């Protein structure tokens, strides 16, 4: 165990700092880090390198390349940079890469190098160019602060909801500040800048001069300043090699240190953890790394390679061409347990467990010792906590084993802490894996929460791992598995090389009917990618029509939408589609569509009630105007409308908007004679009209049998000549002749002529001695065939004249 604390470096009396390797990087960097613009996201996030940035001495002919790596150096994306010169890179809280260009345009890229959007930092920035830029994180999100060529600051506290703020001018500022940073106090972002020996604080109203309390004299310029991860502390590095550390409000000084190095440091970052006893700052020069705190001595490391510091919540990550290390203050629990000659209960418990494994009786001694002090519970908790802070799984295991061992001697020790730690460590080990490359510490993980972690995995398209984690942690499906599956599906539909059929099937197989998955969201995404067919296929799986229909309408599949809406049985939805259709289609097509959808039709019809109400108003008005006739007619119309709707419902077919006459005709044509008669009675259709109507309708149907029955039902009020006429119109001479015989004597001649029986017509005419009829018959006589008849008539005429 003695080797374990070998990498512990004491700082002052109370704190140890240790540095251990996270990954050995095998990224294939062609150039030195110092030649690149570097941005690494906190919380073990990805690293972006923009090689070949715009250096004046370098030829601009080579196109710069933007590379994105995971924290373990796995390449995620690489793309040639085609836009303008970039001043600064930075990662937003959503792990989007913000590239600030010289002209103030900020380009936003995704983790995989996909371009998301861009925005501008305003005209003023455009005119004066960007001198320097910082991306900073606040509780509202990620902000961008820009120092322009005119030495003015413009900042936006949240790039998601872009509101540009131009900071006030610093009086008498002639040259660029030697260093500057953004502070976040009381939820407002400020800018702190150093010009010569003076410090200025800019908030959005004013510019004020500030002096750090207890600053050593003789400072002529500040070379570097650093704000802690939580914006609570501030460190200033002066040209005298003096470091001042205090609160960010500049009201209190914590400590100071003189390192006697006057060269400006390359980077300076805070290295502290929440509730830490010690505040320390890590300062990096080309070859030297120094940890400085409230102690006369500092810890010094030699840097073999060009390195880059990434401040984290509880430490500093340091990566270079070959390694990726983590430097942090040793957590209390670990310190207690592993400190040389520690008598802390945790240390004893760990020792006891080791002895126990060696089957030594010393185990009992140690245990007894702890129990005598009554510190066993504390010991177990210490071991559990220390396990969390260990990076190496074997150490985690041995600590957990010790905890588990100690637990056996305790009554009623709540197990959840232990279980949760086991789970958390498993998750952490999984994501720290080289292939995944998210080196989160336990505290960072707790701060980040599992939900965010899952999002980040999804963002890295590590769907299987994310799902496994969800299942392992038994997260509710809606938050966990199905959410990830939905994300996966959204990604899947963007794969253009797979056929619609396959994608839809694959998605359905995976998703099944997992609760919380919205197929319509996936379909919307597919539609967004221009894959309408796929979207429709996917919508087939969507159980909620309410989600299905609007999207179908958006995709202009109105007819499909209509049938879906009808299937859903949701009237409101059907109406939505109907109104949409009505606007979209012309009237004819609209009704044709409705015809195939009886349910929609009947719904559409319900709107009749509105018409009836309007008619009622009209009728009332007519009554007031004493126009009884019109009022009555209006009431009839109301009755008719209602009746027509009922008919449509019961019999199908179209009745609405027909006149009364046409309604009855349609009924007869449809074979609903009973109803037709009922209607005729209800509306007091006169006999004559009814007879005409029935006659025409039945003839049109060619229902001669029924027609004959009807003709015999009673004496025809219109005579029988119309029967003959109509039959002849339908070219049924046989039927016509039947009725011709029943025509009254006045019209007999006409009827006979109609059926073409000229001879008999002549006979009747002669019998009736009617001059007009005689000539009528004569005009029908055609030369050859009716010669005899013609003669007969002539003779009859002559006779009549004689008399």
């Amino acid at each position: 165990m003695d080797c374990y604390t070998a990498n512990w470096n004491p700082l002052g009396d109370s704190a140890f700092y240790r540095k251990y390797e996270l990954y050995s990087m095998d990224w294939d960097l062609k150039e030195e880090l110092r030649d690149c613009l570097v941005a690494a996201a906190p919380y073990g996030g990805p690293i972006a390198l923009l090689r070949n940035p715009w250096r004046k001495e370098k030829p601009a002919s080579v196109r710069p390349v933007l590379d994105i790596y995971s924290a373990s150096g796995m390449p995620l994306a690489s793309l040639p940079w085609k836009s303008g010169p970039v001043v600064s890179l930075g990662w937003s809280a959503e792990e989007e890469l913000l590239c600030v260009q010289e002209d103030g345009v900020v380009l936003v890229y995704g983790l995989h190098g996909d371009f998301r959007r861009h925005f501008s930092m305003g005209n003023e920035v455009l005119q004066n160019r960007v001198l320097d830029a910082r991306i900073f994180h606040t509780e509202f999100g990620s902000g961008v602060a820009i120092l322009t060529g005119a030495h003015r600051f413009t900042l936006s506290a949240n790039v998601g909801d872009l509101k540009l703020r131009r900071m006030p001018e610093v009086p008498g500022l002639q040259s660029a500040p030697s260093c500057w940073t953004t502070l976040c106090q009381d939820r407002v972002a400020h800018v702190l800048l150093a010009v010569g020996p003076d410090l200025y604080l800019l908030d959005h109203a004013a510019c004020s001069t500030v002096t750090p309390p207890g600053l050593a004299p003789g400072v002529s310029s500040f070379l570097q300043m650093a704000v802690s991860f939580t914006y609570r502390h501030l460190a200033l590095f002066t040209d005298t090699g003096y470091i001042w550390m205090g609160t960010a409000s500049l009201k209190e000084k914590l400590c100071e240190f003189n390192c006697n190095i006057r060269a400006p440091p390359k980077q300076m970052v805070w290295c502290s953890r929440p509730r830490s006893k010690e505040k320390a700052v890590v300062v990096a020069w080309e070859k030297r790394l120094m940890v400085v705190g409230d102690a006369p001595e500092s810890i010094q490391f030699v840097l073999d390679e060009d390195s880059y510091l990434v401040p984290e919540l509880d430490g500093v990550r340091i990566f270079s061409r070959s390694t990726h290390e983590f430097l942090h203050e040793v957590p209390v629990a670990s310190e207690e347990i592993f400190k040389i000659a520690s008598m802390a209960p945790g240390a004893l418990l760990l020792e006891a467990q080791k002895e126990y494994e060696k089957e030594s009786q010393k185990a009992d001694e140690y245990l007894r010792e702890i129990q005598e002090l009554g510190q066993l519970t504390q010991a177990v908790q210490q071991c559990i906590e220390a396990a969390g802070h260990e990076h190496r799984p074997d150490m985690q295991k041995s600590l957990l084993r010790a905890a588990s061992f100690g637990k056996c001697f305790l009554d009623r020790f709540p197990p959840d802490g232990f279980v949760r730690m086991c789970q958390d460590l498993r998750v952490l080990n999984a994501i720290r894996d080289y292939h995944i490359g998210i080196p989160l510490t336990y505290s960072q993980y707790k701060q980040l929460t599992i939900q965010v972690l899952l999002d980040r995995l999804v963002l890295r398209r590590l769907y299987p791992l994310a799902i496994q984690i969800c299942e392992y942690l038994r997260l509710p499906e809606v938050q966990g598995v199905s959410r990830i599956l939905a994300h996966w599906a959204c990604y899947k539909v963007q794969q253009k090389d797979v056929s619609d059929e396959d994608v839809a099937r694959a998605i359905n197989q995976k998703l099944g009917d997992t609760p919380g998955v919205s197929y319509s969201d996936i379909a919307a995404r597919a539609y967004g990618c221009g894959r309408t067919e796929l979207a429709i296929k996917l919508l087939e799986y969507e159980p909620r029509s309410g989600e299905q229909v609007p999207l179908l309408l958006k995709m202009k599949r109105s007819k499909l939408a209509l049938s879906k809406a009808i299937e859903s049985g949701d009237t409101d939805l059907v109406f939505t589609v109907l109104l949409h259709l009505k606007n979209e289609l012309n009237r004819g097509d609209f009704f044709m569509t409705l015809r195939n959808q009886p349910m929609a039709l009947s719904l559409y019809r319900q709107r009749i009630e509105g018409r009836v109400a309007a008619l009622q108003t009209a009728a009332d008005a007519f009554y007031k105007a004493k126009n009884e006739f019109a009022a009555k007619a209006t009431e009839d119309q109301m009755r008719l409308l209602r009746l027509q709707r009922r008919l449509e419902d019961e019999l199908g077919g179209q009745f609405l908007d027909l006149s009364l006459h046409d309604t009855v005709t349609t009924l007869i044509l449809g074979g609903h004679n009973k109803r037709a008669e009922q209607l005729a009675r209800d509306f007091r259709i006169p006999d004559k009209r009814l007879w005409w109507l029935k006659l025409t309708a039945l003839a049109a149907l060619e229902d001669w049998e029924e027609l004959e029955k009807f003709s015999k039902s009673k004496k025809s009020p219109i005579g029988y000549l119309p029967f003959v006429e109509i039959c002849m119109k339908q070219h049924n001479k046989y039927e016509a002749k039947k009725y011709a015989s029943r025509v009254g004597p006045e019209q007999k001649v006409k009827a006979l002529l109609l059926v073409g029986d000229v001879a008999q017509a002549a006979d009747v005419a002669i019998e009736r001695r009617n001059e007009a009829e005689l000539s009528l018959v004569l005009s029908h006589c055609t030369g050859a065939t009716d010669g005899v008849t013609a003669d007969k008539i002539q003779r009859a005429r002559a006779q009549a004249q004689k008399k």
Partner: protein
Amino acid sequence: MAFHHRPDAPELPDFSMLKRLARDQLIYLLEQLPGKKDLFIEADLMSPLDRIASVSILKRGRERHREKHQSAASCTPCTGDMPASKQHEVDKLYKVENKPVLSSSEQLCFLVRPRIKNMRYIANLVNADKLAGRTRKYKVIFSPQKFYACEMVLEEEGIYGDVSCDEWAFSLLPLDVDLLSMELPEFFRDYFLEGDQRWINTVAQALHLLSTLYGPFPNCYGIGRCAKMSHELWRNLEEEEDGETKGRKPEIGHIFLLDRDVDFVTALCSQVVYEGLVDDTFRIKCGSVDFGPEVTSSDRSLKVLLNADDKVFHEIRNEHFSNVFGFLSQKARNLQAQYDRRRGMDIKQMKNFVSQELKGLKQEHRLLSLHIGACESIMKKKTKQNFQELIKTEHALLEGFSIRDSTSYIEEHIDRQVSPIESLRLMCLLSITENGLIPKDYRSLKTQYLQSYGSEHLLTFSNLRRAGLLTEQAPGDTLTAVESKVSKLVTDKAAGKITDAFSSLAKRSNFRAISKKLNLIPRVDGEYDLKVPRDMAYVFSGAYVPLSCRVIEQVLERRSWQGLEEVLRLLNCSELAFTGGTKDDKAPSESLRLILVVFLGGCTFSEISALRFLGREKGFRFIFLTTAITNSARLMEAMSEVKA
């Protein structure tokens, strides 16, 4: 057989001048907007525009040659010497309709009737452009005149400043040598139903234009409220600008203004002269008709211009339909004979024949076959509708016998759903000839009609009632009976007063009395020989002399309204008949036989034929000016609230 005017009949003035005037004015207006532009034309203005200026004229430069154009069809724009500055390049032509406009031109020109609907259309277009951040030039040309209401709409829509407005005072379109039309079919509904008097000014302007072009009218007569108002307005216009017409020799001796509502009966009757029948059957639109495939006996329809230039048509247009067939077959025989002349010709004669006559013969042949086709088609349609029965009923109504039978015929007509417009027409005819329907019939017919064609027609009936076309006798209305009894008891003068009092109770048509007074129903012994017409009644198969034409005849005979007081009283127009004019003694006698008849609210081809006949008999020439050509169907459709 055809109409041949007496040798001493006066020459008609040359109306093609009106066309040239309108065309030049339009071109001038288009040139006000230099450069390429898209022209939007309202559908109603398309045919009239087509008659005066062909598309190629609009698209190309102004014609430099002042050729005499008989019709728009013969307009051939010359592409030769046109100065670039005088171009009025119309790039594309669009119809004004409710569709999105896809014009890409920077200048838009609208040629529209002054209607609110059109203003909204333009406003939408301009506002859409504004939204899209597009700036174009807009020009609205109102024809025949601009109305304040239209400008107000433009103002309301906030685009008044964006468009420039102009007027194209194109109100007189010569459809034929003796026929001018204002092409304002909406005049009838606007004035006689809605009581909207906005077109009266247009009429006055048109009359003013005529008098400046063709000299003052020495004699002026008129009947009807609208006629009177138009006349007064016109007089005012003349007075404002007097001096111009002074000293000009009048070319047209008489002008007669007549309101359509003086005589609805004639307009409601089925027409039986050829031109009227063609109008009733195929609808003559702006002097031309579309003959469908059933007429042309090919698979295409053909647009045919019907006017005096069509030699065949010119000879049969005024004939009773029963004569037309005979005439056409005679003509066909003649034609054949002329073709046959070829035989036995020597080479020289043949050459002559081919170069001079053959083309004419071919043309005549084509027209002949067309009109024969039209006749056959008319015959077929009319037989199907039992036209004979219909005519018989009409005549019965006009003569006033067996009203009961007619009523039941109409009832049957409605019951059988023959045709909504026809039924309506018969009901109106019944109402007017009978001083309104008796309440029982009124109700039952109306109920029947509503049952047949839907309750929307309640509004139609209300319209007809307002216009006085279809009325109900006031209950207990035996006024006529009482009136006649009273008038027997007192002196003539008192009787007139009493009748006035009665008639003021309800505006009624006293058709029967007028008919007797003016002898509208000619007494005939035996068959009326339609081949040799004796009077104007031939246009209705000898059964009825058109009331409007008879009134005109009577007034022209007397040169005043004297002696027609009784008729005026019966027409409810005692106050509305007037005479006027410039009583110019220097008027050449030639001009006194030229008469301009102005029909306000439309005239029918039957009336035109009747007056042409009258003119031929008396040695007059009639010139017709109408707001639009009408017929019974158009009249009824204007009243109908159910738009197809």
